[in-house]
Structure formats: C-alpha cells, structure tokens
C-alpha cells in the first residue's frame, strides 16, 4: 500500500473520529435540503421544474464555506503537534503527504455528495429529468471542491494555527468565488476578460448547466494542482 493511500485513509478516519465529519454532513445536508425542498420561495416546488439547479447553486456556496473547515487542520495540526517530523522521517515524501491529505478531503466531500443521491432519485421521478446535465453538475461540484481543497491545503501548509488557515483559505476563496467576478463585471476590455477567466463562478456555471468544456476542466484542475504543489513546497521547505 502506498504511503499516499495510507495517509488518506487515516485522515478520513480521523474526520469521522472527531466530530468534524458528522458536523459537516449534518450542516451540508441541512442547508441544501432546506433550500432545495423547504424554503418556499425558490425551492423545487416553486420552480415546478424537475432538475437540481437549486441544489447545485446552494451546494456551491455551502462547500465554499465548509471546505476550509475540513482542510484547515490537515497540515497545520501536524505542524503544531510536531507529528509532521514523524511522518517526514518515515518513508514518506512531502508530495505523498500532501497528496494523501488532498485525497482524504476530496473523499470527505464525495461522501457528503453521495448522501444527496436521494435528491437525485426523488427529483428524477417527478417529471422530465435531464440525467446528463445532473451528472455533469455533480462532476462540476467535485471539480470545484478539488480547487477549494487545493486552496485550503495550501493555507493549512503555511501556518501551524488552524484558525489562520481557515480564514486565509476563506479569503482566497472569496477572491475566486466573488471578487474576480465583480471585477470582471465592473471593468472592461482585456482586464475584464482576465478576471472573468479567473472567476470560479464563470467556470462552475457553465459546467452546472450541463456543458463540459475542456477550458473549465483545465481551470479547476490547474487550481488544484497549484494548491498541491505550493503545499508540497511549503512542507518540504524547512529551516
């Protein structure tokens, strides 16, 4: 078994050993459930359309806040408790360590998404349902989560304080989630185009509508990879 996988499994277990995993699942399903089924104005019965568009836009926002909560401890805690020394002096490279942590967080998000399969099944029986668009929507959510996990992992790798890691991840997230979009709409010409390209929502929207464009996939994958590489650099850079 490769060290990456060993670390990922251990990390996923420790999400469930501490209350983080249950808190996250409860909050995620609570929020999305409320807005999809119960909120009245804007919920699925109000729209009278058998699709999960509401779910995808709410899940986007919920994950934007919850992913930093998952990722904040990943490396910061190892630094604080000194266990990072234990890991890196074993047959584990910085890359394997960072990848293992990344995978664990991604699996956590996928587990949360699996719990929304009942939404999918229920809504698909309600009317004319576009399976393709929905599956693409899930794919988009996973890609977007990967990007946020990359950001969160990087934030966690530069400090030994979890709160700092959380806030930093959220701040970087705000840039991608809102700020670049706003700058794109207020600016004009080339600058506007650059910000629009950087804005996460531009890319997420087109995927959640059911269009998979390689540009969007490349965008999310590059943010994830950049996060992973920067974290690896921070972990391997020691005094």
């Amino acid at each position, binding site marked *: 078994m490769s060290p990456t996988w060993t670390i990922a499994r251990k990390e996923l277990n420790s999400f469930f050993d501490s209350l983080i995993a249950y808190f996250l699942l409860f909050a995620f399903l609570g929020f999305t459930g409320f807005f999809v089924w119960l909120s009245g104005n804007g919920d699925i019965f109000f729209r009278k359309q058998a699709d999960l568009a509401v779910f995808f836009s709410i899940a986007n926002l919920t994950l934007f806040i919850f992913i930093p909560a998952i990722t904040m401890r990943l490396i910061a805690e190892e630094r604080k408790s*000194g266990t990072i020394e234990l890991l890196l*002096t074993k047959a584990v490279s910085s890359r394997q360590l960072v990848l293992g942590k990344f995978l664990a967080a991604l699996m956590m998000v996928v587990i949360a998404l699996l719990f929304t399969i009942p939404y999918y099944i229920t809504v698909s029986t309600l009317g004319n349902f576009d399976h393709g668009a929905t599956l693409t929507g899930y794919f988009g959510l996973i890609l977007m989560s990967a990007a946020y996990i990359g950001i969160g992992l990087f934030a966690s790798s530069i400090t030994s304080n979890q709160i700092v890691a959380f806030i930093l991840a959220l701040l970087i997230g705000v840039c991608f989630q809102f700020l670049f979009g706003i700058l794109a709409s207020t600016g004009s010409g080339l600058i506007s185009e650059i910000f629009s390209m950087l804005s996460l929502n531009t890319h997420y929207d087109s995927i959640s509508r059911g269009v998979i464009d390689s540009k969007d996939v490349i965008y999310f994958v590059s943010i994830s990879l950049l996060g992973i590489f920067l974290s690896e650099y921070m972990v391997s850079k020691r005094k």
Partner: protein
Amino acid sequence: MNISIEQLSKSYGMQKAVDNISFSVNTGEILGFLGPNGAGKTTTMKMITQYLNPDNGDIKMDGRSVFDHEVKHRIGYLPEHNPLYEEMPVIDYLVYCANLQGVAKTDAHNQARKMVFKCGLDVEKHKRIGELSKGYRQRVGLAQAMIHDPEILILDEPTTGLDPNQIVEIRELIKQLGREKTVILSTHILPEVEATCDRILIINRGKIVADGTAENLRKQAEGSQIIRLKVEDTELDNLQNSLQNLMSVKSTSILDADTNAIEITSELDMKSNRDIFELCASKNWIITEMIPMETKLEDIFRDLTMN
C-alpha cells in the same frame, strides 16, 4: 549499517547549531550523544534522519549518501518531544506507522503486536494515546521507531519520563538491539550513557569536544591518581607525614580523623598505590581500605563543556 558523518554544518540564521563535525558509527555500536542544552545534538539527529538539510557536509550510510528516499526505510527515529497522534488507539497507531514504513499488510499487524509485547504496552494497547501516562507514551514512541525492524535507530532522549524500573528495561532493550543494529542515542543523563553506550561523543556549541569509550575519556581526564586510604595501628600525623615523603605522592588530605581516613593525590602521570602499600607493609600498619577513585563522568562533562 555504518554511518559516517562528514564535515556537517548547519546554521539557524547567524547562529551555528552544528559546526563542521565528523564522526562515524559502526554496526553493533551504541553511540551516546552528550552535550548541554542547545549543543546541537537534536539538530544533528534531525539531519541524519533527513528532516533537516545540512548547509554543508554529507551523511553516508554504507557509503551511500543519505539524501536518498530509499534510506529512510532503514532508519527508526524517536524525535525529541515524542510527537504522537493523541486521538489514535495505540495499536492502530503502530499499524499505521508500520504501513507508512512499507511493512506488508499482514506483517504490519504482527509487527505491531510484537512491539506492544516488547515495549510492555499490552494492558494499554486499546487506549487512545492521549490517555496514556508519559512513560507509556514514551514506550509508544520507541515502539513506532522500531516497528519496521530498522538497521539504524536514532533515539533522541529515549528514557525521559520513565520510572526507574522502566529505564532499566528500556536500557536492556536498547543494549539488546545494539548488538545487531547501529544505535545513536542522545541524553543528558550521564549514568545512562555509561550503562548503555559503547562509545560517547560529547558535543558543545556545535563542535565535538570528546569522542571515545567512557574508560578512554576518564584516562584522558585523569592525569593523576586519587586513592582513598584507611589504616589502623598508627597515628594520623605519623601516617600523613610518611605518605607525604613518598616520591609519587603530591598531596594528602584528611577525610576522617577518627578512622584514619585519608585521600591521596599522586604526582601527574604517576601511580602511588605500590608505594603506599609498601610503606604500610614495612611499618606493619593494617590497611583496612584502599580505593582508587575514578574521575566521574560528570566531572569530565563539566570540564569539557563549561567555558
């Protein structure tokens, strides 16, 4: 596996933590690393285990440079403050460490059980590490260092926090391991080095100030012989005067006037025991006690590191 350290240096900013040190350790040898706080012991160990990169110099294991990922499998390391995952049960933690070190899956459980037994953790094996007392945590730290049966063991203060019985047990364990492995351990408990180590390396301000067996170090430090003597059937004054007249005796001092106990320091690089015996024999004084005093390791240590 032999370790050789060549001209290793490491600075933190302006401060030189390790300053151009070289030494080597052979298989079957237990090397004791001694030094006052901040001497560079831990930094050196961190470099050997690849946690820190040296500024200069090289570390070789069996001739191969240590900055090679493969070598890590062959090192077991107990870091200074013994960091552990508080929330994990002991046995799970050991299996996790075994997996990380590349022990095959079925063996990982066997190894973990073996280590639990070896380190006396049987009663505590299902407890979370955070619930354990300091001594048991230290044992968990040792167990994880040895879990993959490494050829090299690097132990940074392995017996801190243990009770006297445990200390004896752990020392025995280290000695036993030291027969076939290469062990480097650091400590500031001096009797411990004497009890466990084949060789002692004293380091101060990043430099090696002494290297050798405890005996060798003593010989170097000794210079003059000190003997404690108790004699019957004579007056103290008489005894002291006669001793003072001997060629090899430099000075005497009375320890206890009632029992005629006296401490005799010989001239530099001379031994006075023969002369003393012959003197007493010729005068028919009965020697009831004659003890050659060893220089204590503490004294050597203080000599070398206080300046």
